[in-house]
């Protein structure tokens, strides 16, 4: 199977290691990965902040660039939810019937990494080895908009060496919310402090999730407090293997 990787502008620029890990996992499973270099951003930040007129050209670009692929995979629940759940609204807003049609055709083919692996490929064991104590934060958009369900936990559960611990009140938002973290910085910080408290309660070494945006926020707080707890995107855990030899 040949898929297009939608890396997302955020990962491309700030978390290239997540992109490399995604490629590694997919290729390990025999999936052929293509990376259309014309891709930039899905337009989520603009659209969700209210700059919807400005987001429309980005929606159009995305649809053109990824048109024709059997599947599009992204290591971000949030950006995928933008495409799948909000592109129809964007096309309506643009008042463009043709765009709405292309969106309708493309959006069911766009997958977040864990749901692609579990629901599309039917794989729950990717042959990873990660000897660490890990807790998983289900990001709001993967959980509520995409309904990836237990896919990430199934994948993590089959990682060898992992000590997976449950996060309490896991489903509560970490407080990132895109521009929310800047516009409502105080409220965002209050939400973050509770999330951090719960992460620390697990005594995990690593907090993982399917979105680097939330992880940057959680990790930023964990780092500032010098907790010694790290964050790692799900793809990176799934890409880890035991050293050969």
């Amino acid at each position, binding site marked *: 199977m040949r898929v297009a990787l939608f890396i997302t502008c955020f990962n491309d620029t700030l978390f290239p290691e997540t992109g490399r890990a995604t490629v590694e996992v997919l290729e390990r499973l025999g999936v052929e990965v293509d990376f259309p270099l014309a891709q930039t951003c899905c337009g989520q930040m603009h659209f969700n902040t209210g700059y919807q007129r400005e987001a429309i050209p980005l929606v159009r670009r995305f649809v053109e660039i990824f048109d024709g692929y059997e599947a599009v995979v992204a290591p971000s629940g949030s950006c995928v939810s933008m495409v799948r759940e909000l592109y129809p609204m964007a096309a309506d807003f643009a008042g463009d019937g043709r765009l709405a049609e292309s969106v309708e055709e493309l959006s069911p083919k766009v997958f977040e990494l864990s749901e692609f692996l579990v629901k599309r490929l039917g794989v729950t064991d990717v042959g990873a080895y990660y000897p660490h104590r890990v807790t998983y934060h289900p990001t709001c958009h993967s959980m509520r908009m995409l309904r990836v369900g237990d896919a990430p936990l199934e994948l993590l559960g089959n990682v060898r060496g992992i000590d997976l611990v449950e996060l309490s009140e896991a489903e509560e938002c970490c407080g990132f919310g895109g521009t*929310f973290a800047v516009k*409502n910085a105080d409220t965002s910080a209050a939400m973050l402090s509770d999330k951090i408290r719960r992460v620390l309660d697990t005594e995990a070494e690593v907090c993982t999730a399917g979105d680097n945006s939330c992880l*940057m926020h959680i990790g930023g707080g964990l780092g500032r407090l010098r907790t010694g707890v790290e964050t790692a995107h799900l793809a990176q855990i799934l890409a880890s293997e035991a050293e050969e030899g």
Partner: protein
Amino acid sequence: MKKSDAFSPGPTPTFEESAKESLSDSQLRRNLGKATQTIRRKRAEAVGEMPDWEGLREAGRALKERVMRHLDEYLLQLEESVTRAGGKVHWARDAEEANRIIAGIVKDHGAEEVVKVKSIATDETKLNEHLEREGIRAFETDLAELIIQLAGETSSHILVPAIHKNRAEIRELFMERLGAQNLSDSPSDLTETARLYLREKFLAARVGISGANFAVAETGTVCVVESEGNGRMCTTLPPVLVTLMGIEKVIPAWRDFEVFMQLLPRSSTAERMNPYTSFWTGVSEGDGPREFHLVLMDNGRTDVLADEIGRQTLNCIRCSACLNVCPVYERTGGHAYNSVYPGPIGAILTPQLVGIGDPGPDSLPYASSLCGACYQVCPVKINIPEVLVHLRGKVTRHKQDRGGPRQKLDPENVAMQTVARVFSDPQLYEKAQRLARVGQWPFARGGSIGRLPGRLAGWTAVRDLKPVPQQSFREWWRQNRGSV
């Protein structure tokens, strides 16, 4: 404590400004955190035992959608049914007209005191203040409403207006305002004090005022759902009953209660059935009030109805489940919203009712991380995140189109325009990635960024920022998979 809100004349503070204050109130944080966590857990249990909750939600949504599609017809039908049953229907274009009608009825009966059932519609119109100006005293009879009335505060939750107060605080208030002595802070002592105080009011009042949870177009039956029984007293004891109702509260038929009476109690108080549900149809000889007035109020609702995406906001049955699950509400409390409608529903309803263009209400659609917890629990499936995003668009376009030349220089607007241009062109985008790498050196120290300038300072106030790495993903891809 706040005085002016989105429904009062004059500017309202923004959510950010007000939230700052409430976030640093540790007593409030504790009271709210405890209360919302408890009700959240109970709601999940009450909903979990239903065999087909999703089917019920869908039925509730569909019913409400039908109401909104034919609102004009149902309202006329309701007027006819109520009139036929001996009630009198009044139409109020806005809050002022509603208040005037109600004060007129009270004065016609020469009453100087009225007893009230908890009603957010009357909070919206500021009825109590209006009555006071007309020389009429309104007594709130719902325990939580009474508490905030005595404290001179405003509601911070649509179901539990005094959720921000704990028992010790209420005890002190009762001792001070009701002259109660040797009072403990046990719930039974506190309610007994309130009961004794209210009993006199019930017996003396000649006019009762209520809101409405539902009104049936087919039969003219009005319904109030409550927990304490005070509503039953207000709607049956005084000889005159006045009900103020937003026009969106009408439902087509009696049998529709089957759906709503299952959805509402479980979502609001996490009960299978609420303790008191009062229904009345006009007036009945020898039973209850001799005169019944139903005031149907628009006050911005038809504007909401005209908006295709915003319209679903009117489906709300005011259960408050969205408040209880909202991580923002849980931390800031209701007062930060500066509206009688706080929380997620308030964030979408308030700006639509008062109109876009006032910084206070305009800030409300941004008071959300778009986590979607509200949509997940809403018994009538209002897609609150969708409406939030829609309203953010309206607010932004309003600023851009009417903000004049100054808006063009607004730092956020400038940044968004620039970034949109960069994202539209892969070459510009790659150049920007390289620039970011170079541009960050003044801020990066020892592998992380501890302080950012300007508006971004909010980020680094509590979080480190990871510096932009030396190689972007696409650069890696070109190097390693370039041949593809």
